[in-house]
């Protein structure tokens, strides 16, 4: 499965991609993660690619995304053409105005409401993605979060992830 996460710098898109990849690795799946960000460390587009497969992975980047998660209009506009026609588009419904079918929720708002921190939006979106696709197991994502987020922020990130996951099950 080819998954692309797109947003702007500062939204933690790359970290979400790394955590998703780590979860897949924990599950024993083959996984590749790459990123592309404009040179601006805040505010430019930011893209993380994750490819997860039982087979060996030869691709070096997402070429035809099965899933596109867009957290910001700029990120969406940059990469929307790379989503397959029958692919799944997941958006932050407050921040992205798509021109095709989609699912989603106001991730940033959910982040603020559940943890008080808008910057946990990446974990909310990740939870939503995992619930919708079942690409990796919930527990493995939580383990990956514990390994990858800064010490002391594990619980708040897991809380945000669970909030997104619940939203995705609706």
């Amino acid at each position: 499965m080819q998954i692309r996460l797109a947003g702007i710098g500062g939204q933690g898109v790359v970290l979400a991609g790394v955590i998703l990849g780590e979860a897949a690795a924990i599950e024993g799946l083959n996984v590749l993660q790459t990123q592309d960000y404009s040179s601006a460390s805040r505010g430019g587009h930011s893209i993380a690619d994750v490819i997860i497969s039982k087979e060996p992975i030869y691709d070096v980047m997402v070429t035809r995304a099965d899933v596109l998660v867009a957290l910001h209009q700029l990120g969406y506009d940059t990469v929307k053409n790379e989503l397959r026609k029958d692919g799944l588009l997941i958006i932050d419904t407050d921040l992205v105005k798509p021109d095709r079918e989609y699912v989603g929720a106001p991730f940033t708002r959910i982040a603020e409401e559940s943890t008080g921190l808008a910057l946990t939006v990446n974990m909310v979106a990740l939870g939503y993605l995992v619930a919708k696709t079942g690409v990796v197991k919930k527990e493995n994502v939580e383990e990956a979060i514990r390994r990858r987020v800064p010490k002391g922020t594990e619980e708040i990130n897991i809380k945000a992830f669970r909030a997104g996951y619940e939203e995705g099950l609706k």
Partner: protein
Amino acid sequence: MRYPFPVGRSDFIQGDEAIARAAILAGCRFYAGYPITPASEIFEAMALYMPLVDGVSIQMEDEIASIAAIIGASWAGAKAMTATSGPGFSLMMENLGYAIMTETPLVLVDVQRGGPSTGQPTLAAQGDIMQAIWGTHGDHSLIVLSPATVQEAFDFTIRAFNLAEKYRTPVVLLTDAEIAHMRERVYIPNPEEVEIVNRKLPQNEEEARLPFGDPHGDGVPPMPIFGKGYRTYVTGLTHDERGRPKTVDAEVHERLIRRIIEKLERNKENIISYETYALDDAEIAIVSTGIVSRSAVRAVKILREKGVKAGLLKLNTLWPFDFNMIEELAEQVKKIYVPEMNLGQLYHLVKEGANGKAEVELMPKIGGEVHTPMEIVERVVG
């Protein structure tokens, strides 16, 4: 021995990080470097790990000094590494030659980016192939390895140390910006699972007196490292078996240089590594190395689905080069394609190997992006 990263299990890490961890498991205890994109993460990981394993990590004033320091460390008995990218690799050419001439084991990682000059610091390329093989002046030989995945970056780093030690030679690991920064699942073995080769040390006074001789007949002299009472003299000047400068003696020069080249040439079979994919009945061959090989595998699959009998030869080592194997391949297939992220470097080696037995066509691509599988497919089916 305690390791500063988990061993005996898989981890999800970048290519640069994999190289650092592999170096430590291979026994590397000296790292000297200078910051450069996209190789800095190797240095940063070494800076984090080395003091914890009682090794050295030091930031030198430039890349010239970095390779100089690891040569010094190697003669003091340490397994040593440096890593850089194009601009720094160019600066290292002087002392890479010194390491070849003095038969100093070391590992030099070149994380290729777009060049020449500062070029494209963050983007991948394969423009340093010729420089890795032929970059330093004078007649010489060395070993060049080329990984295509993060796991290979890890495995080939361990192999690079073992080859360096076994053949008393510098080994260049050619990776690129793409592998450097991509994360993949990598198996980090337990230390006892890792095969470790250590350099030959002199077993007696007689051997110690011939640090550049051939007492074992394999072209690889034992290395009388410093501080053991051998009183070894090491020079970049042409020297005889004892290490004494003999700068105008044609015979000494020829004997030395030929042995340095021959010691790798005669062990070619043990050094050269490659993989094939669907090559047995292939009529069209793709020859590739490094990151491009990933797209090439996919391209071969797609071509096979289309009924084209395509196959892949993926080169894990770029030097020594098996020209005979390419000639045999050329006898088997109608055409060989060489996709590479430059305007033609590996192509020239393949063409020389093919020796006119099959047409060899270059598929160049520069600018920073890896060939897509479809680009390769379309070129083959026209």
